[in-house]
């Protein structure tokens, strides 16, 4: 049951990364691929109906962590206190920047808020990357399972390397999205961005993967089959992505990019399993899914609820997407 909960959490987090990932990534490259006012407008319109709904996945992942593994939720959120607060302000700043831009019709006003939107989104990607890097590397848990995540500890080479990978991969993902959802120069520049980002993503991913073997001993990798499967999916998807972009199969390229991200997360999950918050320097001093899971009633309730809700979501999202595109322009 704990393993099932771990998987459900992984699905929700992957959902967040794949969905909010494209609007975060698109925002990060916005200033480069869309330069005139009209271009920026069309790029923004491509995410306007969706970004808010995508962020809901972050809330859902947080709430499910709370329901399944309360002690991990309590320990990680309080341990990463200041970084999490910065994440919150960036999330809010990003939303404000996106919405406030429309308020006044003035080119300078638009330019200012576009830059604010882009930078706050990029900042979020960097922070999420640093968080993921530190979770893989482990955090210094004290007795009672709490820790103090000071910036001095959290800012380490490995975390920065993961953050750079996050930036590169999500920029590529955002570019793949813009190719599908925009036309003309924005789509063309996004396509060129995707082609140029591809070797950087591939090379940097290899470097991060190798350095993972140095920040923690391979003996502590929890689920090597999952790591291998994740890496295989990611590798296959990355190659498929490049081929699809080359052949102008843009929807396919976006799907491949999404699978690449999911593969990365699967291998990260396989590395830390069964710990949700591995310890440092020894990962085995961390909080695992067996000792921190709630009582049976809580696990059954939360599992039923999240699985049912995800099935429902898939159903009504598909239904509405079909209805919204079937008769639309």
């Amino acid at each position, binding site marked *: 049951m704990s393993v099932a909960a771990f998987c459900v959490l992984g699905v929700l987090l992957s959902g967040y990364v794949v969905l909010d990932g494209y609007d975060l990534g698109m925002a990060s490259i916005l200033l480069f691929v869309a330069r005139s006012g*009209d271009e920026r*407008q*069309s790029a*923004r319109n*491509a995410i*306007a*109906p969706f970004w*808010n*709904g995508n962020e*809901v996945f972050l*809330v*859902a992942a*947080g*709430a*499910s962590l*709370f*329901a*399944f593994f*309360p*002690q991990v*939720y*309590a*320990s*990680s*959120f*309080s341990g990463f*206190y200041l970084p*999490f*607060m910065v994440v*919150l*302000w960036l999330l*809010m700043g990003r*939303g*404000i920047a996106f*919405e*406030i831009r*429309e308020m006044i019709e003035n080119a300078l006003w638009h330019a200012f808020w576009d830059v604010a939107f882009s930078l706050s989104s990029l900042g979020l990607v960097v922070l999420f990357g640093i968080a993921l890097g530190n979770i893989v590397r482990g955090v210094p848990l004290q007795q*009672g399972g*709490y*820790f*103090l995540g000071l910036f001095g500890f959290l800012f380490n080479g490995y975390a920065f390397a993961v953050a750079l990978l996050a930036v590169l991969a999500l920029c590529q993902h955002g570019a793949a999205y813009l190719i599908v959802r925009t*036309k003309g120069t924005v789509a063309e520049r996004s396509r060129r961005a995707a082609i140029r980002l591809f070797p950087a993503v591939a090379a940097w991913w290899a470097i991060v993967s190798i350095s993972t073997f140095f920040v923690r001993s391979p003996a502590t990798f929890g689920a090597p089959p999952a790591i291998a499967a994740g890496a295989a999916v990611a590798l296959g998807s990355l190659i498929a992505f490049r081929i699809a972009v080359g052949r102008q199969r843009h929807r396919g390229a976006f799907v491949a990019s999404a699978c690449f991200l999911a593969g990365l997360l699967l291998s990260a999950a396989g590395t830390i399993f069964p710990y949700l918050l591995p310890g440092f320097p020894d990962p085995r001093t961390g909080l695992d899914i067996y000792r921190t899971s*709630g*009582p049976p*009633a*809580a696990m059954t*309730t*939360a599992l039923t*609820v*999240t699985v049912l*809700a*995800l099935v*429902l979501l898939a159903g*009504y*999202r598909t239904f*509405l997407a079909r*209805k*919204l595109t079937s008769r*639309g*322009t």
Partner: protein
Amino acid sequence: METVLWDRIQFAFTIMFHYLFPIVTMGLAPFIAAFRLRAAFAGDTVADRAARLWTRIFAINFAAGVVTGIPMEFQFGTNWAAFSGRTGSVIGQPLAMESVFAFFGESVFLGALLYGRRILTPKLHAASAVVVWLCSWMSGYFIVVTNAWMQHPVGYTLGRDGTVLLTNMPAVLLSSFAWWQFLHVITGAILAGGFIVAAAGAFYLLAERDLDIAPAFLRSGIIVAFVFSALAVFPTGDRNGANVTTYQPVKLAAMEGLFRSEKGAPLAILGMPDTARRRLLDPLEVPDVLSFLAYGNFRANVAGLAAYPRSLWPPVALTYYAYHVMVGLGTAFVAVGALGVLLLWRGYLFRARWFWWIALLTVPFPMIANEAGWVTAEVGRQPWIVYGLIRTSEGISPTVVAGETVFTLIGFAGVYLLLGILYLFVVLREILNGPDVRPHANAPGVTAPV
């Protein structure tokens, strides 16, 4: 002590700012659904335009609610880690249900409602409005369940280390404390929605514009406001009071400013509680009425604060004032609503310019009353974070110090100032632009929202 106080101030500030938006979404959602259904089934074009205006305003509130709601969920973990770690197997459940049922549904169907007017069939479009309405209320329900469990914990056992273990989820979801609290919260939101719609109608009448749609707003708004103001007093307010009397008698004494236990306790209409000297200064009281309201008997004994050790008292003055602000405003809403309905019935409503002003100026007060009600419930719950089980001071994060909370509180104040200004600007602009479509995202390739 200092840390817990700053954590409380931060939570209070962020939740009170956040709650302004759910009041509006929960209050407007039924109006939007009703207008949409009328447009779909009766082909009423006025209802269609009305629904478009309120959907745009709803969307702004939903976005602001999401943006300010994420910090609320984070704060359980960041500032109240000990509480979350101990009680998460219970309170994590309704919070998870809220995000995966209500938020997922609301965000997807709101997209359909905003962008689907020309694409979906009118009936499917109206159905989206109904789903958005149900999801917004469901969201409120799950949050109230969380809070009601903290007010009156049920359906759990205690583990050996003091951890709360969920045993019975249906008991948590169906607790009568939760249901009456939810019904009271939702009537408070609907009456606020009614007064907002009525105020928009009054504004258009006063400005002599959009005269085809303004009477519909004023009429439907004031009827709803009247009915739900009455329901907020009875039965929902009354039943909540009964639950407080049964399960939280100290809170009741603080709300009423009753220091000494009395047979035939008076109801204080006015007065200032003096906690140091343990009496109500300058009181205006109605004898015996509190005994009747609490126990249905004019001579019943009502326990005063003095019957409990000082360490179990909530902050008396704040609880007392918040409660009296809520009740005083609630009474005024019934009066304003009744006056409006009377004018409507006698056929004067659309000539009584003075009443349009009253309707317009009433609009901020339901917000204040809703917030005051929550202050009563939450400050009155002190010193407990889970009533009778865990003290608030035991709930805070062991690794977070006061200075960090002060720093982040200032950060929230800054961001929320910006957000508040932006919000007022955007909503007022929508009202000023009026019900007729004004393409918002007008670039090629995207359907203009509503």
